[in-house]
């Protein structure tokens, strides 16, 4: 998974063609860290269809807020730089993420 920051967010997400998944997290967010191995597993499985990335919000808080993300964990799937679907803390799980990927990409 590619680690995003303030500098590369635009090129790797907003200007990227195709599907991009962003896993918003922070080092103090336990549910985020607990979920991460399962997301990495999905990256192995669907990496050819979706560009998997993660953003540590403590390093790019304004970028996250700019995407209207103010709660963790949040996972957003983008297509051609536009949000297709967002899974927030109340609904997100690895199973929900996989289901979302399959629904949008037809994988």
């Amino acid at each position, binding site marked *: 998974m590619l680690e995003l920051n303030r500098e590369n967010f635009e090129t790797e997400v907003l200007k990227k063609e195709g599907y991009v998944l962003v896993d918003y997290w*922070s080092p*103090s*967010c*336990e*549910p*985020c860290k*607990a*979920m991460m*191995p*399962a997301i990495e597993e999905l990256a192995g499985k669907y990496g050819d269809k979706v560009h998997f990335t993660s953003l540590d*919000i*403590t390093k790019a*808080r304004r970028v*996250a*807020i700019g995407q*209207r*993300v*103010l*709660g*963790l*964990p*949040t996972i957003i799937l983008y297509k051609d730089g536009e949000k297709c679907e967002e899974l*927030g*803390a*109340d609904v997100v*799980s*690895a*199973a929900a993420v996989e289901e979302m990927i399959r629904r949008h990409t037809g994988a």
Partner: protein
Amino acid sequence: MEKLYDVIIIGGGPAGLTAALYAGRAKMKTLLFEGEAFGGQIALTTEVENYPGGALNITGPGLVARMAEQAEHFGVELKKENVTDVDFSSKDKKVTTSKGEYFAKSVIVATGANPRKLGVPGEDVLTGKGVSYCATCDGAFFEELPIYVIGGGDTAVEEAVFLAKFGRKVYIVHRRDELRAARSIQDKALNTPNIEVIWDSVVEEISGDGLVERLVLKNVKTGERTEILADEDDGTFGVFVLVGYIPANELLKDKIALDEQGYVPAGEDMKTNVPGVFVAGDLRAKKLRQVVTATSDGALAAIAAEAYVEHEY
């Protein structure tokens, strides 16, 4: 027949992990489902000052990580799978997860509790958009912004102190004229310069276009309403809802008896109304929900499950 466990434990907080430790030490074939979000409520809290023997600076996640390690040391299998269904109708109990089906002679349910919501307009739609139930998860978003903490118990006041490291100013909004939190926690809050308490007040409404921008408070004594708007420069502020918990009983409805509040009634033997099914931790109907009572429940439940498997199964 799939592999038959002596006991399956549902829940990876202090109650479940202690039950696992005791079951593991009793040489029971033990499987624990911690779910994807491991550690229970305590893994979301910053400090655990009231667990005896824990060092003063231990964090919630640190404590449960040690408990998990200790349980694994005694041969317990831990799986990060979310349990989606249970079937207690046969002698061998079935537990279904997102990945498969598992069978056991006995089950200990330790699914704990989830944060209680306020139930006011705007709360659901702005969750993750400025409304939060987890200070350690979301505190960092609100650096230099105002933060409103709703609640007056231990968790609310403790997390207000934590959030004061990020926020420009932290307001504790409490419906009474005194806090319920333990004295030592209150003193910490009152000695933090950027914390202020708004007494006798409840939230009536939260609103905003994609982000929290407005909060309406009502003074319960005078009936007066106060509208709080985000500064133009800030654009938003944080609302942390820490007003207690509701039992995580979704799996159990119509499977085992629950009380009026949705907790599982059980005495010191941790027995539910279904033979071979036991309860432990915050999910059990009881007076004090703390790590120390959760671990106590876990130990008792494991002993009771062991006796059941040996004599009644």
